[in-house]
């Protein structure tokens, strides 16, 4: 049976082994330093083995897209790890050890999702991620708001998983295969059933991605959790899901009008406008970033709806820019005040702690898409993809949404420029890990903004050309039926 294991993506093997080693270490001795070092080592090794290949398999697709999105996921997890090290809100729980364990497992789930070529592989990855996130959201069990957030997350996550599985069941009934692809790509006999399956699967994914109109849970959940978990939720899980979504639609022609592309277009437009509208009214930074994250999912869907040379590349670039800026913003909030995330907590930051304020300004510029930061180029790239696919309506939405976004991103900068209030404490120094993280992310955001070609793959990434090859051998198919 040993040859079977060589089909696993190498990073999945490393992350699984790391989880087991970490569990063993926790049973021997509970020590936060050992946990953090083991988690960091596992993530670094997982990153290092990404270029390695794997035996061909019907369950996993170890291709360039998997490598790229997994690298983003693992780097983001390292960022969250740096943020949560010495974080007082994590340490106030019963024991901080399981936090690292759940962090590793959520990375494992997200990486698995990006490699999922079979409905079952994808679903196991998704649920591993969701269940780890549930534990992380409710980690501070003695806090009433953490319980509320965990409850909201688990109910909505359960509902969306049920919708997703129902879609998979319809897709299996139609095509007789569990290949993770829109059933249209497999030449269905009954197009209506196939369209229903696709719409259900997408609705489940939109719930998890918190695209409008399935977004209501995100702001409440982010508000109730600690800052590192909020960063994990709005970056790692979204990268994993979006990467999987692109794979799902790889063999599907989204350019032809129909129920499926109409739904994606409508959700993209609603997310771009709705997310920004939600963020404008917020005075809490976490809720504001929740709205911003919803809007960015909408921008990303423009790339999804623009297949061709630009679509995949712009989606990857946008994901990287979004991840860097969002994690950076959360890390600065963590450094300023871990417990108090009202907009007022940033007041006068340019006078009291200019370095942090400058970092925050860079992150906000990147999220808003203002030139020296990488977010500008990411938005241009997505817009070019949209133009090349003649998505005029979506481009209008992108522009309106970006203008609305400017208002609240620049409001953060304005608050930081205001005179400092007396109650602002200046004594707290950022934890070393967090300081390194913030400066690294600010540097990345600026350098990639000036030299964006560093992140653009030289050869276009191909995805899903081998949908037929992903089907299991016929004999096993009939055995399952």
């Amino acid at each position, binding site marked *: 049976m040993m040859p079977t294991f060589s089909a*696993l993506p190498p990073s*999945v093997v490393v992350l699984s082994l790391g989880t087991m080693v970490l569990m063993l270490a926790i049973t021997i001795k509970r020590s936060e330093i050992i946990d953090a070092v083991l988690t960091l080592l596992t993530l670094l090794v997982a990153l290092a083995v990404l270029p390695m290949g794997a035996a061909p398999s019907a369950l996993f697709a170890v291709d360039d897209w998997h490598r790229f999105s997994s690298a983003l996921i693992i780097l983001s997890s390292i960022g969250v790890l740096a943020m949560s090290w010495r974080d007082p809100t994590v340490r106030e729980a019963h024991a901080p050890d399981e936090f690292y364990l759940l962090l590793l497992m959520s990375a494992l789930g997200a990486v698995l999702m990006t490699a999922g070529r079979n409905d079952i592989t994808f679903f196991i990855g998704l*649920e591993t991620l969701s269940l780890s996130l549930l*534990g992380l959201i409710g980690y501070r*069990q*003695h806090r009433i708001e953490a319980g509320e957030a965990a409850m909201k997350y688990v109910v909505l996550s359960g509902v969306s998983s049920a919708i997703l599985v129902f879609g998979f069941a319809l897709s299996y009934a139609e095509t007789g295969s569990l290949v993770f692809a829109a059933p249209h790509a497999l030449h269905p006999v009954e197009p209506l059933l196939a369209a229903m399956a696709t719409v259900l699967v997408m609705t489940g994914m939109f719930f998890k991605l918190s695209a409008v109109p399935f977004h209501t849970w995100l702001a409440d959940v982010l508000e109730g959790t600690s800052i590192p978990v909020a960063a994990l939720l709005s970056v790692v899980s979204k990268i994993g899901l979006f990467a999987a979504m692109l794979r799902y639609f790889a063999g599907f022609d989204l350019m032809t009008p129909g129920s499926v592309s109409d739904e994606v277009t409508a959700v993209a437009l609603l997310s771009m406008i709705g997310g920004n509208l939600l963020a404008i009214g917020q005075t809490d930074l976490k809720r504001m970033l929740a709205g911003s994250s919803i809007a960015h999912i909408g921008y990303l869907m423009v790339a999804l709806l623009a297949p061709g040379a630009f679509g995949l590349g712009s989606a990857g670039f946008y994901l990287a820019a979004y991840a860097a800026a969002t994690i950076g913003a959360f890390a600065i909030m963590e450094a300023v005040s871990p417990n108090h995330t009202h907009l007022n907590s940033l007041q006068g930051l340019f006078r009291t702690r200019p370095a942090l304020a400058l970092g925050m300004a860079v992150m906000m510029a990147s999220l808003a898409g203002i030139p020296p930061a990488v977010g500008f180029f990411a938005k241009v790239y997505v817009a070019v993809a949209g133009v090349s696919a003649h998505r005029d309506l979506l481009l209008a939405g992108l522009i309106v949404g970006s203008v609305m976004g400017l208002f609240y991103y620049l409001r953060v900068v304005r608050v930081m420029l205001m005179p400092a209030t007396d109650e602002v404490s200046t004594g707290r120094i950022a934890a070393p890990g967090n300081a390194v993280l913030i400066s690294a992310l600010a540097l990345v955001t600026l350098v990639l903004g000036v030299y964006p070609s560093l992140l653009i793959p030289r050869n276009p990434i191909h995805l899903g050309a081998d949908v037929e090859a992903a089907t299991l051998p016929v004999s096993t198919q009939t055995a*399952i039926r």
Partner: protein
Amino acid sequence: MSVDFSVGLYGLIAIAATAMVITRARPVHALLYMVVALLALACLFDSLGAPFAAMLDVIVYAGAIMVLFVFVVMMINLGQPDETRERSWITPSNWFGPSVLAALLLTTLIFALGHGDAATGPNITEVGPTAVGMSLFGPYMLTVELASFLLLAGLVSAFHIGRALGEKR
């Protein structure tokens, strides 16, 4: 009167019972209907040629998980005058509905079994435990291994959240 008829009846019973589950105000009454709904689902699985899934449904869901639910509901809010309260929950009008549905289900099942094996319809091949095991530990072996991490994540999360608050540090 054919296999189709009994399949339709199972489906109707499942829908009716589920509708009752989500409209009951008291959890205990909802759980009684939920057991019936799961049994109807098991009958449906069996008539579609999946006896193994049907047995799992009866043993795991209708059996173990439902008993656990009923147990938890009964254990919660201890300390009040329980006996009188519980007696008021289980009045004849409350167990009548689930019993009727269950009896209907049993009649249909006996009828269907009497009229030949349900799993011999035109497009139905029976999938027994062997076939399920062969695919789980054949092509899907790696997903079975990875599912253990899914269970681990659930276990760690549940254990951490469920840990008594008094145990802090």
